[in-house]
């Protein structure tokens, strides 16, 4: 029963984040960038400004609503890149083996040995700040787990009778990987991607906090936190609400990932 709770709460929170991400602009009362009004600077939460206002008098609620779009875009975009790289390398390495497997293994170990945030920082330094660079940087640095898992899965699946049968039927390697191996590795890969999305959102916040992510005045949750660091004692709502948004989104994705793991686990499906 606990498993179902994970799935329900995680799914609910994730749906909420997605909803805000898509409809944020309509939910916001004011424009997050244009509606600066220094007269309203650093007002605490009130009936008019639900989450209070920031140093420049912008409505924090509206900025959090807009920010969801950026955080989720980065999360989803970078995970798509991660999953594409990880499964391609992992499945081919596991299926073909040999020198290619050794090479991919070496590369994976190298990626795991370098702290991914530092690596992403380096890539950002080359590509320059911005949403697209952020997605690429995070997408290029977090595929090692996906790769490891899909390689292990491919190794296990390629010795199964149905893969042998496909070879006997004349299927080529590519067709076998796409129709026989990939569909059977998807369960764990979806779980990793969901969990990874939370990681990416945190990494986006960290990079934006360091000034390398989304450029101000775009309202990313991370950059909002970054802007709020000087006022954390005097006006804590500036950091509280973007922080809470990150927390709930990441928590939701992690619970969803755990819940999906239990649902997609082949062990829990009946064999007979």
């Amino acid at each position, binding site marked *: 029963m606990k498993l179902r709770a994970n799935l329900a709460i995680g799914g609910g929170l994730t749906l909420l984040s997605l909803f805000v991400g898509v409809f944020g602009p309509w939910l916001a009362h004011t424009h997050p960038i244009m509606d600066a009004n220094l007269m309203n600077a650093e007002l605490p939460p009130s009936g008019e400004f639900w989450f209070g206002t920031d140093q420049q008098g912008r409505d924090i609620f509206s900025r959090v609503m807009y920010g969801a779009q950026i955080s989720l875009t980065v999360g989803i975009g970078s995970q798509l890149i991660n999953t594409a790289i990880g499964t391609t390398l992992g499945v081919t390495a596991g299926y073909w083996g040999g020198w290619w497997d050794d090479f991919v293994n070496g590369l994976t170990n190298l990626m795991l040995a370098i702290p991914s945030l530092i690596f992403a920082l380096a890539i950002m330094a080359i590509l320059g700040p911005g949403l697209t660079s952020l997605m690429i940087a995070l997408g290029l640095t977090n595929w090692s787990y996906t790769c490891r898992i899909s390689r292990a899965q491919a190794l296990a699946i390629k010795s*199964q*009778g*149905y893969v*042998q*049968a496909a*070879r*006997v*039927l*004349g*299927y*080529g390697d590519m*067709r076998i990987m796409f*129709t*026989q191996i990939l*569909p*059977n590795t998807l369960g764990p890969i979806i779980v990793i991607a969901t969990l990874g999305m939370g990681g990416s959102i945190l990494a986006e916040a960290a990079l934006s906090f360091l000034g390398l992510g989304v450029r101000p005045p775009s309202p990313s949750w991370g950059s909002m936190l970054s802007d709020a660091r000087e006022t954390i004692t005097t006006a804590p709502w500036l950091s509280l609400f973007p922080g809470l948004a990150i927390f709930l989104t990441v928590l939701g994705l992690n619970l969803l990932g755990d819940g999906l793991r239990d649902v997609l686990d*082949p062990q829990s*499906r*009946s*064999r*007979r």
Partner: protein
Amino acid sequence: MADSNLLSIEDLAVHFPIGGGMFSKPQMLRAVDGVNLSIKPGESLGLVGESGCGKSTLALSILGLVDPTRGRVMLDGKAVGSEADRLEVARTVQMVFQDPYASLNPRQTVRRTLAAPLRLHGVSNEGEVADRVAEMLRQVGLRPDQADLYPHEFSGGQRQRIGIARALILKPKLVICDEPVSALDVSIRAQIINLLLELQAEMGLSYLMISHDLGVVEHMSDRVAVMYLGRIVETGGWREIFEQPRHPYTRALIAAIPDPLTRGLAREKARGEIPSPLNPPPGCTFNPRCPHATDHCRSAPPVLSPVDEGHLVSCWRAEEFAKEPA
């Protein structure tokens, strides 16, 4: 002379390098070492052997999935191997697997399992694909309306029927059955054996029946080959092999069956364990386990030679065992 055989294997050897790193030389695993076999259209050949005898490697080389180190495999007059047309080989020879659970993709419906090979092999008319899938399911004793179910919705016996349908959907001429019933419940085996025999008659199939169960082999085969450590040690008609076995290993296999019915057929069992194919004993490879081994057997390898019409034995003392009861 035109070859009337559907399959002919000539002096086939498949060796694999095992182990070996940067500083050590790999050892040679002689999985198959000089095998001659043939199967005529419509005929079933039983292949008997224990673990490490090379029967799986032999099957892989017939399917063109392993290249011979020496010799060749001729299928329907054409050589099989990495040079051959993979699709053409697939349309000629197919395989039924041992484990009905691991041999079906859990994420594909039966329809997909059966239709995908048809499309791959150029059947593009969707109506024809659907008809052939339905017809195939009927032939293996399943209902066409079961096509949209997933493998886990079937019992073990039904899954093996699906495995047989997949092997036959391309209408091959030769089917390799690798222990087709040994993973099934005892009370289900007869259904599958009967089905395989019916389909053979209906479709004019040839079978290579790989099994360690001599009862199954006797029931299903016209001719039998006994394999030990990469070589054929005895081959002949099912009657010769099971009623007048000449090779001590064949006799040991029969003697090992715990059934009151076979007690009179052979008594002498083999001693000890099967040696590693990485390090086979010199001379006759069966000599360390043979109750009749002489010094000659320990130094010189015997060759497969005829003792009777169509009955070949690889044993130095085969002549002596002719009259003697096993």
